[in-house]
């Protein structure tokens, strides 16, 4: 038993090391030989895996941060408080990695600060840049209590706690804006995108799918970190989040199909083309299966069932972002894009760094709260005082 766990640890450490070495080498090549030498990007395909996965998926997967903050602080459902720290940590790390990825993808990364001083308010990219920057700052503040506590800086801690609500409100608004704007990026290319994905609703799709994947990530991470750090899963908490996913996904899918209907695109769903298959795959994996799974109470209230549903949502989400950024653009391009070895290695490098840093922080700071429920006396939404009496 003991041997087994040591072997497991060294195996994953080995994998991580390998990723870091190969990815590090790819990044080194990118900075010394140029984008052309390491990527399969071309003039016809100027955005590839790094934008599609590292940026679009990265930002979406970090959406748990603002979703949970809104649930806990705005909708005042305080019982989720114990999982707020790990979620904020993931979001914060996620955004830092997105910025890191951007520095690799930009042709002139040293000019990134230009977005601060050379304004073009007509550009969606400009808006995204500002929102991401401001929201990363907000996340830093939301995350800072963990550090301040560790170093016993109680005065600063008090200041941060005092501005929690304004921070949360700002964070939710900034997230709403840039999560949806990542979809708006594609509004300007109606003639370059496959009609199954192009829609004037793209910003709303991106927002709703970000909310649902944000919720799914909370479940997914709680499950994994419970396993990895040998903790109890806050199961009674996360299972409720499953219902939020059903609502978000439900709205998302109804909108999506209503729009296809309105635009007269339903016949595209019956075509036999690569795009149609990929569209169905995305919708079935990411929307239909998880909705069905989560509606069934037995599955929702079962650890494995809940975890699997979350995994489906995440898988479908990744497929959607890759479809929007690559499959749909491929249709009208004569250039066939598939990411190069170095592009994939760089992406894996970034993911690996994320996991390692998360582990380090969790081991050294108080990210998971030890006493989850007791401090929440009287803080439930309860209208009847007797109920409150019972709960305590």
């Amino acid at each position, binding site marked *: 038993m003991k041997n087994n766990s040591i072997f497991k640890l060294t195996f994953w450490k080995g994998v991580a090391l390998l990723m870091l070495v190969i990815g590090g080498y790819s990044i080194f090549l990118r900075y010394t030989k*140029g984008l052309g030498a390491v990527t399969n990007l071309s003039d016809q395909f100027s955005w590839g895996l790094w934008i599609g996965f590292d940026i679009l998926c990265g930002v979406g997967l970090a959406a748990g941060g603002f979703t949970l903050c809104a649930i806990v602080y705005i909708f*005042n459902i305080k019982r989720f408080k114990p999982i707020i720290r790990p979620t904020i940590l993931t979001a914060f790390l996620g955004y830092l990695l997105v910025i890191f990825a951007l520095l690799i993808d930009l042709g*002139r990364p040293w000019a990134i600060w230009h977005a601060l001083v050379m304004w073009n308010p007509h550009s969606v990219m400009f808006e995204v840049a500002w929102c991401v920057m401001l929201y990363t700052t907000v996340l830093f503040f939301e995350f800072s209590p963990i550090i301040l506590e560790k170093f016993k800086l109680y005065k600063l801690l008090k200041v941060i706690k005092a501005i929690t609500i304004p921070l949360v409100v700002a964070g939710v608004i900034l997230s709403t804006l840039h999560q949806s704007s990542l979809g708006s990026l594609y509004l300007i290319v109606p003639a*370059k995108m496959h009609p199954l994905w192009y829609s004037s609703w793209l910003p709303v799709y991106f927002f709703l799918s970000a909310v649902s994947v944000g919720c799914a990530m909370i479940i997914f991470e709680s499950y994994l970190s419970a396993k990895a750090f040998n903790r109890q899963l806050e199961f009674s908490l996360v299972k409720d989040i499953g219902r939020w996913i059903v609502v978000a996904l439900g709205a998302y899918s109804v909108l999506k199909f209503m729009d296809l209907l309105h635009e007269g695109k339903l016949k595209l769903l019956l075509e036999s083309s690569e795009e149609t298959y990929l569209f169905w795959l995305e919708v079935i994996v990411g929307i239909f299966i998880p909705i069905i799974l989560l509606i069934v109470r037995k599955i929702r209230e079962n650890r494995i069932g809940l975890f699997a549903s979350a995994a489906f949502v995440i898988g479908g989400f990744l497929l959607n972002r890759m479809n929007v950024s690559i499959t749909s653009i491929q249709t009208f391009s004569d250039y066939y894009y598939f990411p190069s070895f170095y592009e994939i290695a760089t992406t894996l490098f970034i993911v690996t760094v994320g996991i390692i840093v998360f582990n380090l922080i969790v081991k050294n700071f108080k990210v998971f709260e030890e006493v989850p429920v007791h401090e929440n006396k009287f803080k439930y939404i309860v209208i009847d005082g007797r109920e409150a009496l019972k709960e305590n």
Partner: protein
Amino acid sequence: MNKKKAILIDITRCIGCGACYEACKEQNHLPETSSDPLRDTLSDKTFTIIEQRGDYFIRKMCQHCDKPSCVSVCPVGAFEKTEWGAVLYDEDKCMGCRYCMQACPYQIPRYEWGELNPRVQKCVMCYDRVKNGLPTACAEACPAEATIFGDREELIKEAESRIRDNPDRYYPYIYGLNEVGGTSVFYLSPVSFEELKFNTNLPKKALPNFTWEALSKIPTIVTVGGVFLTGFYWLTNRKNEIAKERFQDEQEEISKSKTEGDITDEK
């Protein structure tokens, strides 16, 4: 030079000699990339090409759109639509996000993929020449007058009268006049533009409008969102306070009634 300039390309006249191709290379100090102009592709080193489609030759170059996508999407405003029509790029602003390339409906901007300090490259409508009252190098070089340069309004009239006077020779459509809200490069063709594989699916609406419809909602989202979220916070917290107060009141009443010796609760 305040008048808007344009380029008119008459496919019925083009003989595919490649003079424009050579002239452009020379004017912009671009290296040779192919011995046959008809085989070359647009690149960071080639701003115009001639493609053969059946019996016809088609020049490809930046359309210098009236409402250019490239100008609209660039986060740092590196692209500019000049007063006289040309769309120009400023490498000192560019940060290399390549959104301009992603957004251009004609796939025009090209990237210096091999460089460590890459630029976006495309036709500049011979800015230096036009500034001095000269036509573009490609227009000047064309021996068949298939490419001509001039004032936009006059060229539109010229194109219209060519179609009117020779209805057998021309397909009755000026490509580029209304595509994506109008451009500065017009094409006349003997056959339908679909047949020549021009991009005929492009909306007539200026593309930046699609984005603006979403972007202009931002102030509303921020203000309404701010009020809604703060309001909701206030509501949910108020509810809790009421619950707490009521709970305390009840406690008090219970203890009061207990001191009064009322024991109905315990029965």
